[in-house]
């Protein structure tokens, strides 16, 4: 679609007469700079944009070319930044998002004006919901055409305002590099999120010799790092006297690098730990204190513990409705100690009795210093262990029946190292990936939580692969419906020779919808039957990837081994039991403590 924008369009004729069209002339470099050849002075807005990225330490960017963004791409041509051309802008945004999750640094995505920019919107909304650091640079028609409904013109800042942390319309070639520096700083500082700079073509083509300012947030953006000492003291006292304490670790724990501090605190004081879905990996799930994930499809023991605790230490979580179920029945006997960098999250959904605004790592260190003795919660700890056996996640997998998805997830987990990265789409397969893979490390779980974006899996695997260490496997656990939405990314994985294993849990349904239809819509499978799926293994081969297929239990171990061993992108079309459902389950707005273990309990 937007690739075609590279054709000369009316908008392209509207450039400054004195534009610099050829920046690839290293011979013309002035000699006053005796650093490497990459530090020639900037001559255009586009060069200052790229310089701003280089100054910020950016090594990779994901995007799609197009008419209005061409000057920036031209400047990228001479840069050491590795640009990964994606097959669709949505994939560029998701790849940059995953890059940010795995590396901890903002991911960069680029798109042209109009359809290029609108294709980013889903990825921006996804990053906004999950507070992932991301910078989007979008081309825009020349300033004088803005507002004229010009070719490929969209009011990008208007469209993206609700789904970005901040966005800027660049209006000055001298400032445009600094605009990008600021966007980069804002994306990562405080509560992370996506930022966007809209770049009109005359601004990027315009002459400038102004070097961009160093990345810094504007003065009006203030972040409180340390929590109020008095409230910390009161919270510490509450923890010391707790009879039924629980820690709830959210995505903010991972983002602020507080996992280690939280682990030490929990183990030191023997406090059971629950995570949210974005918090997966913040605490090792093979540790005795781990109750894993709570919420709609959380474990029974996590939901029992969160329902019955009297002291809830929530760190870096925003109490999303998928976690809380109905507000009225969420941890109704608990005093809430809420640690968050964003004051607006405090008491937004659940009233905080001890509001601790600050950076998670800093505040946890404050708590470590303030808590002198562990809570005497012997009975409670035993109760949590009892719940772990009462509500075990053991499942039935008779060998004469179709393959159960849980078995496949466990086999994948077994075949890979502890540091393997899992990415997913959205749906049943995502929930099974939460429940049946044992996560022990932060930044190894890459998923779409708040927005629930089907199609997130493959592009995020691309971004994760590029950000990951060479010895980390990247496994994309996908669903048939999700995979179909962004599978054009396979062409990118093949071109870049990315070692990714995609396991498509294929039940020929849009499974989560089918599960709800069975439970709440009398089994009327309206538009959820996906028996029209292509053969994904053959499709993979057509792209130049390696295709595998699993039909029964005998194939599982060997096929997974081969697919993971294959050095490049491989796709396993795993034909699972089409009737498999996700349990436990708390219906929307339900009581977490009343989770259903089977359909007849819904």
């Amino acid at each position, binding site marked *: 679609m937007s690739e075609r924008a590279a054709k000369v369009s009316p908008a392209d004729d509207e450039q400054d007469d004195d534009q610099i069209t050829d920046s690839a002339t290293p011979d013309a470099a002035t000699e006053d700079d005796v650093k490497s050849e990459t530090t020639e002075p900037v001559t255009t807005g586009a060069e200052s944009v790229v310089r701003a990225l280089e100054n910020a330490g950016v090594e990779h960017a994901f995007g799609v070319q197009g008419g209005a963004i061409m000057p920036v791409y031209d400047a990228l041509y001479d840069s050491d930044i590795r640009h990964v051309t994606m097959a669709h802008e949505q994939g560029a945004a998701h790849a940059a998002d995953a890059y940010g999750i795995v590396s901890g640094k903002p991911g960069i995505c680029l798109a042209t004006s109009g359809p290029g920019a609108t294709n980013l919107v889903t990825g921006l909304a996804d990053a906004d919901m999950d507070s992932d650091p991301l910078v989007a640079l979008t081309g825009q028609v020349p300033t004088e055409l803005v507002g004229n409904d010009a070719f490929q013109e969209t009011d990008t800042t208007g469209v993206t305002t609700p789904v970005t942390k901040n966005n800027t319309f660049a209006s000055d070639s001298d400032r445009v590099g600094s605009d990008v520096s600021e966007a980069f700083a804002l994306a990562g500082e405080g509560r992370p999120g996506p930022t966007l700079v809209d770049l009109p073509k005359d601004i990027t083509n315009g002459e400038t010799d102004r070097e961009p300012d160093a990345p810094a947030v504007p003065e009006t953006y203030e972040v409180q790092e340390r929590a109020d000492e008095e409230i910390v003291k009161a919270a510490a006292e509450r923890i010391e006297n707790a009879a039924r304490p629980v820690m709830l670790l959210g995505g903010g724990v991972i983002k602020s690098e507080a996992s280690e501090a939280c682990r030490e605190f929990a183990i030191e004081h023997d406090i059971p730990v629950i995570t949210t879905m974005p918090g997966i990996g913040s605490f090792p799930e093979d540790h005795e204190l781990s109750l894993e994930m709570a919420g709609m499809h959380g474990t029974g023991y996590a939901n029992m513990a969160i329902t019955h605790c009297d002291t809830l230490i929530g760190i870096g979580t925003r109490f999303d409705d998928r976690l809380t179920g109905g507000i009225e029945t969420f941890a*109704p006997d608990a005093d809430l100690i809420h640690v968050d960098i964003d004051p607006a999250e405090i008491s937004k959904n659940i009233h905080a009795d001890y509001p601790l605004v600050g950076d998670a790592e800093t505040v946890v260190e404050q708590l470590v210093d303030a808590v002198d003795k562990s809570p005497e919660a012997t009975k409670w700890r035993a109760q949590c262990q009892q719940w772990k056996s009462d509500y075990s996640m053991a499942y039935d997998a008779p060998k004469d029946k179709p393959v159960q998805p849980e078995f496949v997830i466990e086999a994948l987990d077994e075949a890979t190292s502890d540091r393997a990265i899992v990415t997913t789409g959205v749906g049943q397969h995502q929930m099974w990936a939460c429940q049946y893979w044992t996560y022990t490390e932060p930044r190894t779980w890459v998923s779409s939580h708040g927005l629930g974006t089907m199609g997130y899996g493959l592009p995020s695997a691309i971004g994760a692969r590029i950000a990951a260490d060479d010895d980390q496997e990247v496994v994309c656990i996908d669903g048939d419906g999700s995979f179909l939405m962004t599978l054009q990314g396979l062409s990118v994985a093949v071109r870049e020779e990315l070692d990714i294993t995609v396991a498509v849990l294929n039940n020929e349904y849009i499974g989560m919808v089918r599960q709800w239809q069975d439970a709440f819509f009398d089994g009327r499978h309206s538009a959820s039957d996906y028996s029209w799926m292509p053969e994904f293994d053959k499709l993979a081969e057509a792209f130049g990837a390696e295709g595998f297929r699993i039909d029964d239990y005998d194939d599982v171990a060997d096929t997974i081994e081969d697919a993971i061993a294959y050095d490049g992108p491989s796709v396993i079309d795993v034909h699972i039991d089409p009737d498999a459902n996700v349990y436990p389950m708390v219906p929307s707005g339900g009581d977490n403590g009343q989770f259903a*273990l089977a359909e007849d309990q819904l």
Partner: protein
Amino acid sequence: MKRGLDGPEPDERPTPAGRRNKQGIRIDPEVEATHEPRRTVISALVEHEPGVLSDVSGLFSRRQFNIESLTVGPTEDEDRARITIVVEEPDPGIDQVEKQLRKLVPVISVRELEPDAMRRELALIKVNAERPDQVAAVADMYDAKTVDSSPETATVEVTGARQKIEAAVETFSQFGIREISRTGTTALARGTDQTATAGSTAQPADEANRDDQYQRADDD
């Protein structure tokens, strides 16, 4: 094969005694506490740059905050504008309004005004002028100025508290109102009390999250 998982069924499990209300506040189930909406004025000092107003108004529609009026204008500092917003929300909602506004990057400071703050509105009211003397008399009664008159119409300008404007509109309606344009409320704190200044963001976020005792705000 068995579908689902083993374990005590929902009705075999212990249930907690407590409950929370819709605002996530723990309550005594015996006396369900609900927060009634109240009307108040929020004043925000913002960077005077394009797009700020749409950021702010977009925030209100997106988060479903109940907004009654929004006015904006320049200040003594040419780089800054003041936005005055009248909202009607329960207390937790008013807290959210303030916090979400503070999160916007171009917003410098945000404050809820005291009930005794000066609140003013301006209205232009165009009426039929068959009885010019009576129109003038009513205008006098509300300290209104006649700003335009023609053989058929008279347009008056009224300023004052919202109730005064309402009353004026009510009284002028006897002549037949052709058109009305109102500005919405603008407001300032009294005396040396600062409405919202560049220096006042320093209120620590925890401070803002302490339970405040709100009073009912009455328009002057």
